């Protein structure tokens, strides 16, 4: 869990949110751009989860480990669920359907960082 990773993740999540809203505004369905952004977002989240898991296994103590793991699992799940759900939507609202979980991830990673720093600080 590092601030750099969290910043990168929230930037990508923000871009995905913007791309989703933009495609709705342009009355278009989601395209390759959304898929790529969602893929990058998921990859960043996986890296984060692995880093956190390694450090936790290495003895880092968190005041709220269960909450942290819950948020981490939720964040990992959201981009995948969002893409699957948006792919089944055939109208221009598919972009907004994807923007919702992306925005949620952007918020969640900062909450994750808070929970993490409460332990290491």
């Amino acid at each position: 869990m590092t601030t750099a990773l969290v910043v990168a993740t929230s930037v990508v999540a923000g871009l995905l949110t913007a791309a989703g809203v933009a495609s709705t505004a342009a009355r278009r369905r989601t395209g390759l751009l959304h898929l790529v952004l969602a893929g990058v977002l998921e990859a960043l989240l996986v890296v984060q989860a692995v880093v956190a898991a390694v450090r936790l296994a290495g003895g880092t103590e968190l005041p709220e480990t269960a909450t942290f793991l819950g948020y981490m699992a939720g964040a990992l799940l959201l981009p995948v669920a969002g893409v699957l759900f948006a792919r089944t939507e055939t109208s221009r609202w598919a972009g907004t359907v994807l923007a919702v979980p992306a925005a949620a991830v952007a918020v969640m990673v900062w909450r994750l960082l808070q929970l993490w720093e409460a332990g290491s600080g």
Partner: protein
Amino acid sequence: MAEHRVPGDAPPAEGLGRVLVALYGVFALAAGARAAVQLATRFAEAPLAYLLSAAAAAVYLAAAAGLLRGGRAGRRTALVACVVELTGVLVVGALSLADPAAFPDETVWSGFGQGYGYVPLVLPVLGLLYLRAQGRAQKSPPPKSPPKSPPPKSPPS
């Protein structure tokens, strides 16, 4: 799934409805994960707040499922869930401000959903508006003037 749809039934969520389903899904996840952790690790501290979180998660899930399935039952489920949510967020929001001691730990509905960007306050209203718009769309087209019966044949004179 919804192949045997009776005219007048709501269709499964699509378009804007799906956006609502996504929002409800995210909140079901957020409230549910929080409630699960809280109930599992420190139920005794604030049982009311934690049970409330769990109930909120269940209501969000019901709303998402109801909207997603559509049909008369789905619509009714979503309607009830939205009303419960709106009541919940207003009552709990007011109580949490009036008597903070009763809510030592945050719930999704504390302070009218303050901790979640007030989305919990807006969500049920959006849901109700969507359901109302959907209901209106179904009523149309309004019945036109009754089909005219063929003019009676005048008996041959």
